[in-house]
């Protein structure tokens, strides 16, 4: 383990990177969504709209900040912070390269033996921010919206947990670095069907977890004014969205680490440039970028689920599919391999 100062420095760098990543994810999202809809998107502020996130940030900071009467002020202010902090904290256990590849340092903040559990746990704590924010705002709409969000997260948490079971069984470890080094796809082709199903189940659950389209019911602009953020304005409103976008980045990193080989590239690129598949950071960043693009593609294509559809899909379909994938993988490991 690194000395405390090094960990602190890495955490600082990672936070800055993630927050910058969040800012430019909004730019990427707006540009890509626009192109999916035949438009150009933001291109006025700076070259190709690249200063747009800065302009947005300045706007958000200087907007009027309204706190409702009789709101629980402490919780009302803390709630967006909880969301953001736990969205950021989850990234700490995700490995970005082999040991000592970051100027002689390890490219992760902590190398947890229960890294997988840790990421699952911290990403799900974000819903506390949503729920407390909705409760503290002293508004029925917010309360209803936040309750719906909590119910949604619980419905999908099971699918999320069950779909990682395949990976855990194959890798035999909860350490994210070891999972990447083992590379679950290389163990046996017989495991691929279970893994593919698990990948899709996990992806859908993660989409619901970070409330991305088509599972963006917490926002619920049409049905519930704006769900749990009805009473939020200015910077506190932006913080909730920061949590959501950072959550998207974390989810992409997590999917890449568990299912797509993390920082490792596919083997065939070594034929082009020797050692290319082992370039640290590059592959993880590329995978995160591709996954984020697919998230945005989904946003452009799909409609929001209705609440009962969401519940039925979560409990009746996703739960069973993820469970089935785990069973198949377990059976293959137990009886075939």
């Amino acid at each position, binding site marked *: 383990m690194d000395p405390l100062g090094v960990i602190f420095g890495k955490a600082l760098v990672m936070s800055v990177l993630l927050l910058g990543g969040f800012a430019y994810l909004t730019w990427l999202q707006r540009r890509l969504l*626009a192109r*999916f809809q035949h438009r150009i998107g933001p291109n006025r502020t700076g070259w190709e709209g690249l200063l747009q996130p800065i302009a947005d940030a300045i706007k958000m900071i200087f907007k009027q900040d309204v706190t409702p009467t009789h709101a629980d002020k402490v919780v009302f202010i803390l709630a967006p912070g909880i969301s953001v902090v736990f969205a950021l904290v989850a990234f700490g256990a995700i490995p970005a390269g082999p040991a000592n590849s970051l100027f002689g340092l390890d490219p992760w903040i902590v190398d947890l033996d229960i890294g997988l559990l840790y990421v699952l746990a911290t990403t799900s704590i974000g819903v506390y921010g949503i729920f407390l924010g909705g409760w503290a705002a002293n508004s029925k709409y917010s309360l209803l919206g936040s309750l719906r969000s909590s119910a949604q997260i619980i419905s999908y948490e099971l699918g999320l947990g069950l779909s990682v079971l395949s990976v855990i069984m194959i890798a035999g470890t909860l350490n994210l670095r070891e999972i990447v080094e083992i590379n679950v796809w290389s163990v046996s082709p017989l495991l691929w069907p279970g893994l593919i199903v698990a990948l899709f189940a996990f992806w859908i659950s993660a989409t619901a977890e970070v409330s991305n389209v088509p599972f963006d019911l917490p926002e619920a602009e049409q049905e519930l004014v704006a769900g749990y953020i009805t009473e939020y304005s200015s910077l506190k409103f932006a913080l909730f969205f920061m949590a959501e976008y950072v959550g998207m980045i974390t989810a992409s990193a997590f999917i890449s680490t568990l299912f797509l080989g993390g920082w490792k590239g596919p083997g065939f690129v070594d034929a082009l440039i020797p050692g290319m598949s082992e370039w640290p950071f590059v592959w993880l960043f590329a995978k995160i970028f591709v996954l984020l693009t697919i998230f945005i*593609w989904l946003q452009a*294509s*799909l409609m929001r689920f209705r609440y009962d559809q969401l519940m039925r899909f979560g409990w009746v379909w996703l739960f069973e599919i993820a469970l089935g994938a785990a069973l198949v993988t377990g059976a293959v490991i137990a009886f075939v391999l």
Partner: protein
Amino acid sequence: MSVLGIAKGMGVTLSHLFKKPVTVQYPEEKVDVQARFRGRHHLLRHPDTGLEKCIGCSLCAAACPAYAIYVEAAENDPHDPTSAGERYASIYEINMLRCIFCGFCEEACPTGAIVLGHEFELADFRYENFVYGKDDMLVGVKGSKWQRREAEREGRDVELGLAPTSRPELEGVDY
């Protein structure tokens, strides 16, 4: 919603990614409107004599469903007529905030004096600036009130937000 349906829909959005966007970079890039677009009103003159076509009959005001038009007529001076008829419009005002650009005034006008043109940049700050008088609408006047105000302040020509083309029904309108 089947998986196939989702895949189909995602294919549609993906195909849009590789098409050219249809966005018009409006203030820099100017497009012309359709030929029958109804924008700001023009009050026309007879092209040969230069007399105003409007005879102050108020039929446009009567036809206007939004009560946006106010006309006050006066007798023509026989030696120095303003219009070709017995009377002319001494006051002709259109409140652009009320106007719904339906074109009924055009239809009602017996002399074809009022025509809806192609100018559409009519936004302004004060209520009184939306009331367009004769001076603002008579043929030869280019642009809306704020465009002319701004052009005067900066000492340049009036710039329109559209690429002007000549229209036969706006005879004598000089863009």
